[in-house]
């Protein structure tokens, strides 16, 4: 973050006792935060016998990737026993177009709302911004009806539409805040030179938009990948996304409960966003903060 040194820590003097307590607390909390992930991971590599034996905090004695293979390829979800792989790809087929379309539209909207203002632009932006925060329960029934009428019920295309529509507010917000601080003189002088609307966007704004595009893509990817409510409401069957399949797998009550398979499936469902977080943690953070209204 910034380079400000903690003036308080320096002033209070580095009493050794203080330092030990501070580091101790921080490490204990880190251990608490890591425990659920550790338990998920270690359980996913244990055999069922070992799980029945007890200690969830123990490392697997005989690590096996069997639960991961079962979760991926042969665990039963509903009536079919083909694992979660189909749903995993459903999620990808949903998330890629939804992220690309909503980001592209957000960039154009942000550009218009900052560099081509028109009377009433503030009202338009305000309405789009509030749309980010509505509880989706208040649009659920009409959405189900409209998707049915469009023939998009239980389809990935339907979910793409839903995520594009309800992601627009956020992507517009990101780009608007970013372009707000982009020097208007550059746009004006380009206009003077006769550059048109799209030329200015392509040649001047877009080339310097890489940071905000990354933030926007990460934010949208995480949000859409992690969505459950829309998935379970509009695509319950074969075209369900990963989160819905995971919930069906875990909450199904037939047969022997395979906790190790459940945990492996949960890990698989969480991996794409965890990878994004690890690879692009800095941007991930910025995306979250931008989502918190503060640009």
């Amino acid at each position: 973050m910034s380079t400000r040194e903690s003036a308080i820590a320096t002033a209070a003097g580095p009493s050794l006792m203080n330092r030990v307590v501070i580091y101790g607390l921080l490490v204990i909390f880190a251990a608490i935060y890591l425990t659920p992930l550790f338990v998920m991971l270690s359980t996913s590599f244990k055999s069922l016998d070992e799980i029945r034996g007890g200690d969830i905090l123990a490392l697997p004695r005989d690590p096996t990737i069997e639960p991961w293979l079962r979760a991926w390829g042969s665990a039963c979800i509903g009536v079919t026993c083909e694992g979660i792989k189909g749903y995993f790809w459903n999620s990808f087929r949903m998330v890629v177009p939804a992220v690309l379309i909503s980001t592209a539209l957000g960039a154009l909207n942000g550009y218009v709302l900052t560099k081509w203002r028109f009377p009433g632009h503030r009202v338009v932006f305000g309405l789009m911004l509030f749309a980010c925060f509505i509880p989706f329960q208040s649009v659920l029934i009409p959405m189900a009806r409209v998707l049915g009428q469009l023939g998009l019920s239980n389809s990935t295309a339907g979910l793409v539409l839903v995520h594009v529509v309800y992601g627009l507010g956020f992507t517009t917000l990101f780009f608007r805040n970013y372009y707000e601080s982009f020097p208007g003189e550059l746009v004006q002088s380009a206009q003077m030179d006769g550059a048109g609307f799209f030329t200015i966007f392509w040649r001047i704004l877009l080339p310097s938009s890489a940071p905000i595009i990354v933030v926007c893509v990460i934010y949208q990817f995480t949000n859409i990948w992690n969505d459950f409510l829309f998935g379970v409401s509009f695509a319950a069957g074969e075209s369900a996304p990963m989160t819905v399949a995971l919930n069906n797998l875990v909450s199904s009550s037939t047969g022997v409960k395979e906790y190790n398979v459940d945990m492996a499936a949960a890990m698989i469902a969480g991996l794409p966003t965890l990878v994004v977080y690890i690879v692009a943690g800095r941007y991930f953070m910025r995306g979250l903060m931008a989502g918190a209204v503060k640009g």
Partner: protein
Amino acid sequence: MSISSTDTRRGLQDWLPRLVLAPSFALVLFFVYGFIVWTAVLSLSTSRILPVYKWAGFDAYERLFAQPNWYMALKNLAIFGSLYIVICIALGLFLAILLDQKIRIEGVLRPIYLYPMALSFVVTGTAWKWFLNPGMGIQNTVRGWGWESFTFDWLVRPDMAIYTVAIAGIWQASGFVMAMFLAGLRGIDSEMLKAATVDGASSFTIYRRIVIPLLRPAFLSAVIVLAHMAIKSYDLVIALTGGGPGNATELPSTFMYSYTFTRSQMAVGSASAMIMLMGIAAIMVPYLYSELREGQR
């Protein structure tokens, strides 16, 4: 000829920005505001399993507030929401202050507190369901260590299950709140703090009297974000407890879903959705209004 074509071009150039924005705005108007009106209409109708556009006045709202289940949902939201907001903020502030003490391994610790935010509520719920499972999870493990009477069975106790939802929710979001406060702390002018230490103030006093008051905007954002997430949270409850045991962890969000889609009480479900919307609007509208006005200056 050439004049009129440049005129058309200029006219197009003037209208082009608005034309580019129009589809998005139309989508939002229809799919957000149109749908909200639609849901409002349904909440005033006699709809049960399918939408019926027959006026019923506030009948559905009366039935809604006559439901013990709805009171349960509101009570649970109050418990869950207040614990979630207060503890996330307390913990987030605490961790942020600790991390602000020139910690050499900050780069390692920060991502550890934050990673749960990357996971979906369904994954979080699944993990905690396993962790809190009395037969297999932490209770069983501690008993295995020799503490035979150790009991932690909140997940299956109707009076305590809502607290497990709060625990999992806090685990998921407190790191994010920490990051918000840390960003706030790093933005405070260090000269002012140095002056205060020169005046002989203890670091506790400095935090209490100077730093924490300066974090007001971060507090406000954190409360808004957390309150909004608490009202909307649905997935976590579904994955962790499924609303149970019984209806012990019912929230307005799960209430709406089950009344609309499984209990064929669409008007009552719509009414509950409208109440949720009003709750969020009461928080978000003043906040967004002040934010946008600030941006104007």
